[in-house]
């Protein structure tokens, strides 16, 4: 074996290298935030948040280009995510209740295993699936708010289900037994006692799913498609933020590029905000129950 000095030196090299890994990983995050704040911050204004997208303009400096905004697209994203949540939250929470309260070790575990697997499926595959389904049976509304929100809902359901399950599991058994001890049936105990005491955590899980869905672009390219007007009807294509970032970001138009950064900054602020709120709520919650 090497001498203690050499071994100690090795130890410090390892500490330094692993610490360097952390620093290297943080560089892209810092770069993304910096670029979005510098380039996106310059276009932010009330007008930007409310006006419709401008016509494309290829003057490189951007001087004299029409100035527009992303108002309708924010509305489109809200509409899609809202519709998707209306579908996904009830289904997800019920699945969570099933796996945590009724499923037992066999079926319940199998269901939560496959919800876990589903969270890893690529969103584009879900887009293709919804597209394929509708093109066969309802070709008229393949590109519509309906298909877009169904695709987003399929992405959200496993996330809602898993976080609901975890939050319900964190409720102590004594709470359930107290409810049963009062002689009320199990389902009412779950609805009136167990679920309310887990509600903040369940709601946070739904919020995390909203975060994930709100940033998705790939499935929307095949379902909600896009327009410049945002949400104009359930059976019409919907313009929303992420696909527009893709469209504007890969265009050569200088004002579109600037707007794409503005839209990115807004998405980042929303996502990081949701993520931080979720973190705070979940941590306090599980701590209150003496660790999950």
């Amino acid at each position, binding site marked *: 074996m090497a001498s203690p000095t050499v071994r100690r030196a090795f130890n410090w090299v390892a500490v330094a290298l692993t610490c360097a890994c952390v620093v290297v990983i943080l560089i892209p995050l810092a770069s993304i935030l910096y670029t979005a704040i510098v380039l996106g911050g310059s276009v932010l204004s009330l007008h930007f948040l409310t006006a419709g997208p401008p016509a494309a303009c290829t003057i490189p400096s951007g001087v004299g280009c029409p100035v527009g905004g992303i108002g309708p697209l924010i509305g489109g994203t809200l509409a899609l995510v809202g519709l998707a949540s209306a579908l996904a939250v009830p289904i997800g929470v019920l699945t969570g209740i099933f796996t945590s309260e009724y499923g037992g070790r066999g079926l319940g575990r199998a269901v939560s295993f496959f919800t876990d697997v589903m969270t890893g499926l690529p969103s584009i595959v879900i887009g293709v699936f919804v597209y394929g389904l509708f093109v066969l049976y309802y070709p008229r509304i393949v590109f519509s708010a309906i298909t877009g929100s169904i695709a987003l809902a399929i992405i959200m359901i496993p996330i809602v289900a898993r976080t609901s399950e975890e939050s319900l599991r964190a409720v102590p058994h004594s709470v359930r037994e107290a409810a049963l001890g009062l002689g009320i049936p199990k389902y009412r105990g779950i609805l009136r006692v167990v679920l309310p005491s887990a509600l903040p955590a369940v709601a946070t899980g739904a919020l995390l799913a909203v975060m994930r869905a709100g940033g998705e672009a790939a499935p929307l390219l095949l379902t909600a498609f896009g327009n410049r007007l945002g949400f104009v009807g359930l059976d019409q294509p919907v313009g929303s933020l992420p696909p527009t970032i893709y469209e504007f970001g890969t265009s050569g138009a200088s004002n579109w590029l600037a707007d794409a950064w503005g839209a990115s900054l807004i998405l980042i602020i929303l996502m990081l905000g949701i*993520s931080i709120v979720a973190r705070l709520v979940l941590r306090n919650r599980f701590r209150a129950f003496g660790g999950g």
Partner: protein
Amino acid sequence: MFTGASPSLPRFGLRFLFGVVWDPVHGIFGVAPEILGTLVTSGIALLISVPLSIGAAIFLSEHAPAWLRDPVGYVIELLAAVPSVVFGFWGLAVLVPLMQGSVDPWLQSAFGWSPLLGGPNGGGRNILTASVVLAVMVTPTISAVTRESLAAVPRDQREAALSLGATRWEATRLAVLRYARTGIFGGIILGLGRALGETMAVTMTIGNKNAFSGSLISPGQTMSSLIANEFTEATGKLYVSALVEIGLVLLLVTLLVNIVARLLVWRVVRGGAVAGGA
């Protein structure tokens, strides 16, 4: 999805997977270059990301002072909250010029003799650039699962090694990593699943050329980026169904990868929790 792909499934059979020509105009569809593109980008992404993620996780759970652990670990996981289209846009705006201006020319002059890194660099939008963006995107997944697996290693394991006179690093290497390797491996596979299916970020940085030249600094295409690029322009039943069939292939591959990953992670994280009575 099987029904959606029904016009192209029997028509091409296995030729779909091994054919190298993608020619919608003449109705010839082979996705071998895209399958290769998917595998190569994901592979390189893991090569870059795995050492970094595991290193960072080791630092945070074994070496860092307690007050640093959670905040920094959390900031790394914030990367997972950034939408993938923003990653792509960042890749296009920041990484592509960087690769085009300095990294690619340097690679070409140093390693241009090898077919792996030779040839025209596609203006910075190429397989390597897409791989780097993917590496950034899978890092929070791998490092989070690694951290969880390391946290599931019993304290005794570390103390036993330390009491035998091991340095902190030796204890980590011999006693902790060995114990946690199943979970870490699960995390890597989970990261692989994410990389295989990632669409927007790849589409925006890979250059979108339906060929695989063998060079990492040439433009290419992945299965998912091909779908994203051509779906809205696809005309004709056969063309659309060929794209749906790619989706089907991608679904089967990622389903398999995710099942393997979850089995590994569950065994460590859940199995440990049950045995510990927590």
